[in-house]
């Protein structure tokens, strides 16, 4: 698989300590946003609380249709009299006060079960994605000032007790811009959620994964945007909020070291999960451009056809002389000959005609055509007339 470099651990003042951790194999798992998205979506359904319309809603009347012949629509109408309600339509989804179409029922299938392998695959993918800075940036977290990704801090931070110290820590580590982004995004939820105890919403900030809680929860939990989870209970809904991979995670050293045990590396099975090893990728090397340039593949290919053949428009040789000449070189000569002959013939004929008429011809106009209204023929005719006489 891919190389697994050493990750430096940072202390509370954000200085690199001497200790390093080899990158857990999880971070080299396949990043499959499709699986993450699917599993996330299914998992979300599991927290749903059922909703339904009241069972008897719209049916608590003894309405009956008046039938035909009363000049009213045939919908069941409320019995009796003496009130507005009498005679009004009932029971239908189109009626005011009627039951809705397909009343929602509590026995709808709210929850989904997801295959355990799929679940684990999704978590591995999501964790792997948190090791790619581009994905974290693309998700929207401001990590431009973070010293390293994945960000591992010493176990000392698990003992933090005061929020003030926690804030100082985040600022020194360069995670504060991300928190600030959450603070700036505080706004009211659109819609009825406002009056259902979900009034305010804001963005998600850094996720802090710890190994042992010595007070860290209390220190960090009031900071806007920050979420805390323990490493042995990683939750996809927290690691890939919204179904999108690439949340910004701050690990503690202990938590980071545990990842290899929890998820295994390919040579070793997971210790914590029964019968689980990291997912095998479909392609070991997914760098397509590199592959295509590789020697082994290039050797197996035939030579590329660089010649571009474009379809030519078919032209009719009988109309297009150039094309005719291509097919029959003599055509040009033939055509010329034909033209010359025609000219000769015309001339001869004209000469004959002129002779018969006794016209001495100088140049162009056919002086015979009388009523053309043009000066020249008229002049010629005038010339002719006196001669005729």
């Amino acid at each position: 698989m891919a190389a697994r470099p050493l990750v430096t651990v940072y202390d509370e003042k954000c200085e690199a300590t001497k200790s390093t951790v080899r990158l857990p194999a999880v971070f080299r798992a396949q990043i499959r946003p499709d699986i993450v998205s699917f599993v996330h979506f299914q998992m979300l359904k599991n927290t749903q609380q059922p909703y339904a319309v009241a069972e008897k809603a719209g049916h608590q009347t003894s309405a009956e249709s008046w039938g035909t012949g009363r000049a009213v629509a045939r919908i069941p109408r409320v019995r009796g009299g003496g009130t507005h309600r009498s005679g009004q339509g009932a029971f239908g989804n189109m009626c005011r006060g009627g039951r809705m179409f397909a009343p929602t029922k509590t026995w709808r299938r709210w929850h989904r079960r997801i295959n355990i392998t799929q679940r684990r695959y999704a978590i591995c993918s999501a964790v792997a994605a948190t090791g790619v800075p581009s994905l974290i940036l693309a998700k929207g977290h401001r990590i431009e000032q973070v010293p390293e990704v994945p960000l591992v801090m010493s176990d000392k931070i698990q003992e933090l007790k005061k929020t003030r110290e926690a804030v100082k820590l985040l600022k020194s580590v360069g995670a504060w811009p991300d928190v600030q982004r959450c603070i700036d995004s505080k706004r009211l939820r659109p819609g009825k959620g406002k009056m259902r105890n979900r009034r305010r919403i804001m963005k998600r900030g850094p996720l802090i994964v710890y190994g042992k809680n010595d007070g860290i929860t209390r220190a960090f939990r009031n900071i806007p945007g920050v979420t805390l989870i323990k490493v042995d209970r990683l939750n996809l809904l927290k690691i890939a909020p919204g179904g999108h991979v690439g949340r910004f995670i701050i690990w503690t050293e202990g938590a980071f070291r545990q990842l290899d045990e929890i998820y295994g590396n390919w040579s070793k099975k997971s210790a914590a999960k029964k019968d689980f090893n990291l997912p095998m990728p479909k392609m070991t090397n997914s760098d397509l451009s590199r592959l295509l340039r590789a020697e082994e593949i290039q050797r197996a290919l035939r030579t590329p056809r660089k010649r571009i053949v474009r379809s030519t428009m078919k032209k009719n040789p009988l109309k297009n002389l150039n094309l005719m000449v291509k097919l029959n070189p003599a055509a040009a000569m033939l055509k010329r000959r034909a033209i010359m002959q025609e000219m000769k013939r015309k001339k001869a004929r004209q000469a004959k005609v002129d002779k018969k008429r006794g016209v001495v011809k100088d140049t162009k106009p056919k002086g015979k055509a009388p009523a053309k209204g043009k000066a020249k023929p008229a002049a010629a005719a005038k010339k002719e007339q006196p001669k005729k006489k």
Partner: protein
Amino acid sequence: MLSFRTKVGRFCRNEYNLTGLCNRNSCPLANSQYATVREEKGICYLYMKTIERSHFPNRLWEKVKLSRNYEKAIEQINTQLMYWPNFIKHKCKQRFTKMTQYLIRVRRLTMKKQKKLVPLSKKVERRERRREAKALVAAQVDRAIEKELLDRLKKGTYGDIYNFPAHAFDKALDKEGEEDEEEEEEEDEQESEGEVEYVAEDEFEESDISDLEDMDAESSSEDDTEKPPAIPKKKRPRVEIEYEQEPSTSRTTS
């Protein structure tokens, strides 16, 4: 990435983007080897990111200051991006060229006289205009002017004037009549030396008579009392005979 892409038009909002478009080739997130030219306060820098530093976001971008000289800067870009993909090299140089051009334009514009555009708030302007008009009315400028002129007249800065516009004079006299009554009441309390005033007959006017009558109607002490010089009475065109014995009449004569 799509998170930086604008909704309308395929533009990238990432500040390191070379072309401004959201493409696979132009995305600073999608390419592990990338370079841009950016300008800060008139100085152009070449930013480069390589795959070796891809996991250290705070050191990711290497910043090289480009020379002020255009040719030298192009050479700098060429040497820094020597074996880089042609697309990035080409686009960097194009971007740098465009930048220098607009910087020149900026400098030229700042030299020219710049009109500062101040936005007007229509609502505010309308409100203030109305308020000015109201304040003008409330100030009663003409009255103040009138008062000032009368004061000056009383003080005698104009000497004695005999031509008054009739209605203004009458109005002033009427006012004075009221004033007199008030003042006279006050003066009853004040006890000052009585003084005899002699008034020329020609210049006697009805209002004067009425005043005198009023004066008579009130106590005799009025005749005696004189208004302290601090409160000058009416401005009348009259000549007063001053007794040299008692120079306390401070009225300036014509």
